[in-house]
Structures are given as structure tokens and as C-alpha cells.
């Protein structure tokens, strides 16, 4: 049964080239939402933009106008660049001493600065309309700490949670909700390719729900937050991890 309040709305989905972002685009379209999809990686009909660059975000806004929903999926444990737009994911976690300041800055920019720039660009437009839904992407790495990626990614995603809570307070009076989703182990094609952190079947079997997540599992929660069901949810971080970690 379709969710209330989605049909006819307009959404911006970042990081839409593959995996979770791509699943969200599909889900929205199936609900009758008009979707503007963007990624630094060119594929299909999506808008190519480097969201760590304020000029690119401004140009994106000129094409998108005022969305009802802004879904910030862009990011990841390895920062893409304009020359390497879909980098392979690491096969194991990086130690603190293995992360140099360039990697640190790039991962913070890809995950946190991008969300900040997109929100800064689009929130004023939503405020003028007194309506909007913002969904940012955190990670279990920020909730329990990261043993699969590294401190740069966990810190960036922790920043996303704080950004989201602050936006909820700041934008609440304008009828705009801001929430974060903290996915656990989601088997996207890129993660499967990297056999991320040498995840074992034993680990998967130890999860309360006994399976890895699917991108569609995350898309469902995004749809929920943008629907009537999410109308009074704001400032929340929703853990979607099959019971791996319960949060604060």
C-alpha cells in the first residue's frame, strides 16, 4: 500500500549512481515522486556534480529548484574525485596512523562538507515554503565506532548526526524535519565487490535478523521519513542495521 504524502512531491537524491542512492531513486519513482538524481559519477540521466564544491552545488540548485525532500546519500569510506569518480572500497579497516591528513580531509569533505553545502543551498528554499524533509546519511560507524573503515569516516558521519540534530532545531519552526539514517552492514554491489572487511558468514549469521541489509531496506526507511509517518520525527538518527547495534 502506497505511503501517504509522497505522490507528486519533488526529491533531490545525492550519491544516486549506485547502491543505496540508486535504490532510493527507484523507490521514490515507484511512489510517484519526481526525482532529481545527482552523483559525481556519470551514469544514466543523473546530474553530475562534485558536492564538495560550493559552485557545483549552486549550479545543481539552478537545475533542481526547490525540492520537497533532500536526501544526502553522497559519501562513503573512500572519497571520490573528479578523476576517480567511483573508487574501489577498501578491503579492510585503516588504522589511525595509516590515515594521512589528505585522506582525512577528503573523507570529511565527501561525507560531511557535502551534506552541509547541500543543506545550506536548499534549506532556505524550503524555509520559504514552510515545508521540507531532509534525510542525511550517517553510519553505524558513528554510532558504535568503526572497526571496518577508519576514524576519518566515523568522525565524518558523527558530524553528520550533529549537523542533522542542529538543523532539526533550526528548521523546525519552518515545518522542515531533519533526520539521519545510520545503516549497518548493507550489501551494495560495491561493498560486495570489496568483500568489505572480510565479512564472514558467521558474522552475518550472528546478526539478530541473520542477514545483511539490502539497499531497498534503506530506501523503505527514507520513504517512511518523507511520508506522513515521518511528519513529527525530527532530529532523530534511525539505526537500520538488523539489530547489530541499538544506539544510545
Amino acid at each position, binding site marked *: 500500500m502506497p505511503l501517504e504524502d509522497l505522490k507528486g512531491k519533488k526529491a533531490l537524491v545525492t550519491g544516486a549512481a549506485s547502491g543505496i542512492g540508486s535504490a532510493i531513486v527507484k523507490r521514490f519513482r515507484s511512489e510517484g515522486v519526481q526525482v532529481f538524481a545527482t552523483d559525481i559519477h556519470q551514469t544514466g540521466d543523473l546530474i553530475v556534480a562534485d558536492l564538495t564544491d560550493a559552485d557545483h552545488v549552486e549550479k545543481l540548485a539552478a537545475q533542481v529548484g526547490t525540492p520537497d525532500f533532500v536526501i544526502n546519500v553522497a559519501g562513503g569510506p573512500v572519497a571520490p574525485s573528479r578523476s576517480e569518480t567511483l573508487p574501489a572500497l577498501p578491503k579492510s579497516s585503516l588504522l589511525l596512523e595509516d590515515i594521512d591528513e589528505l585522506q582525512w580531509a577528503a573523507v570529511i569533505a565527501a561525507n560531511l562538507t557535502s551534506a552541509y553545502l547541500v543543506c545550506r543551498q536548499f534549506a532556505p528554499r524550503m524555509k520559504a515554503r514552510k515545508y521540507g524533509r531532509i534525510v542525511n546519511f550517517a553510519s553505524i560507524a558513528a554510532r558504535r565506532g568503526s572497526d571496518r573503515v577508519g576514524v576519518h569516516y566515523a568522525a565524518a558521519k558523527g558530524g553528520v548526526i550533529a549537523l542533522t540534530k542542529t538543523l532539526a532545531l533550526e528548521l*523546525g519552526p519552518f*515545518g522542515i524535519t531533519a533526520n539521519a539514517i545510520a545503516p549497518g552492514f548493507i550489501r551494495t554491489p560495491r561493498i560486495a565487490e570489496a568483500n568489505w572487511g572480510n565479512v564472514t558468514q558467521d558474522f552475518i549469521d550472528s*546478526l539478530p535478523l541473520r542477514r545483511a*541489509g539490502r539497499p531497498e531496506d534503506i530506501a*523503505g*526507511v527514507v520513504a517512511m521519513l518523507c511520508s506522513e509517518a515521518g511528519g*513529527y520525527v525530527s*532530529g532523530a538518527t534511525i539505526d537500520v542495521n538488523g*539489530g547489530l547495534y541499538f*544506539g544510545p
Partner: protein
Amino acid sequence: MKTAVVTGAAKPESIGHEVALRLQRDGMGVVVLDLYEEGFSSLSGCQCIKCDVSDFDSVQRIFSGLERVDVLVNCVGGSWEITKDDLRAGPRRGFLGLTNCSLEQWNTIRGANLDSVFYCCRAAAPLLKKQGGAIVNVASIAARKGIPPGAEGSSGPYAVAKAGVMGLTRQLALELGGFGVRVNCVAPGVIASGRLKKVLKFSGEQGPEGPLKQIPMGRVGTVAETAALIVALCSDDTSYMTGVTVDLNGASYAA
């Protein structure tokens, strides 16, 4: 036919009432457990059973008569003493905290809010495990932040019982996950239910958690929004969520 059991659904303008109607609209058979018989006529099509869910034996007896349960939504509860003898009771004057409540008050409030959830989950678990399903419990923002001394219209025992509901949710998520049963919880802030009207009438312009202007979204939540969230937590949209408490409070408390 897929079957949902919803407790605390008989009072019109309650969250449970709206949840029962929505699950029915989604094509489920709905069983309502409640003591408030006068409300049963507003739930045509639901199987309404008079039951005190804070009584272990009553709950066991009811569930032993059910053939199938796919969804259990535990809405029964209340922040002040509501007993079998006075189902329409309103809040009382004065702050009711842990340091001044009577043992009887503690037992009544804990029984309605926490024991009832344990009893219903316990009785429903064997039925849910057969084919998988979902449990959704209702906690409260009171579990997150407590009730400040001086506040009227809610209570300390309620805050503690609702925190217990969150812990129960996590524990059951671990115990039932392997059977395809997801267990989640919502923690509402101030919701415009029939009960809130009682509190507002009682306390003037202030909600049970303080002035409404302290809510960043500048409004109370609706019963429809709350019920929609609960129904979403029963659905495949949340198929990878378990053990989670979703706060809905207009940004007034971020866990």
C-alpha cells in the same frame, strides 16, 4: 488472513484506535484488547475483546484462543493511574515522582505500561514465531528525559516504565530476530490524542512536558502521524530495523 493484535485501541482519538483502523484498511484482521467497552462500537470489523492486559492470566487466555498473529502493537498505557474501576480517570494535582509515589501507584502504573507489554509479547511470541512478523511498542519522550519535579499530568513511574519498554524492545529483538520477528518501539512526544486534551484541560496552555513553545516544530504531533509511523514499523518498509526506538517529538529531544 494476516492478523494484528492491538492493545489500548478502544478509545476514539487514541493512537491505538487509529492504528487498528489503518491495519484493517491494509487488509489485516484486527483483534483489539481493551477494557474500555464503550469504545468497541467505533471499531466495526475489528474483533474487540475486553481484557485487562496488566493481568498475566487474562492475556494468556486470550492469546491461547488466537490461531495466528502477524503483528502485535502494544498501545496500552498511561502516565497516571488508570484502573479497572476508573477507565476515564484524569491526571491528579501535584507532582508524582519516584520519591513520593505510593507502592500501589508504582505497581499500577508499571503494570499498565510495562508488565502489560511483557505479558502480551510473551503470549504472542509463539504465534509470531510461526511465520515471522512484527511487534511495535509505544514508549515515550518521558523515558528519554524523565519528568521534572513540579510537572503535573505525567509521572516518574511512567517515565521509568516506558524506559523499561525500550529495554524490553531491545531484548526481544535479540530473542525473536532469528524467527523473522522484528521488534521496534516509538517514543512520542506531545501528541494531540484524547488523553492530551484531558491534560491540557487540566493544566491550561501547558502540555505534560512544558510549554508547547519549547517544541522546535512549534506544534504537537497528530494521532495520524503517530499511527502512520507505527504502521510503517509493522511493514516491509522497515524490514531491516529491529530493536530500534524511533523518537517522534517535533525535534524537542534528539537521542
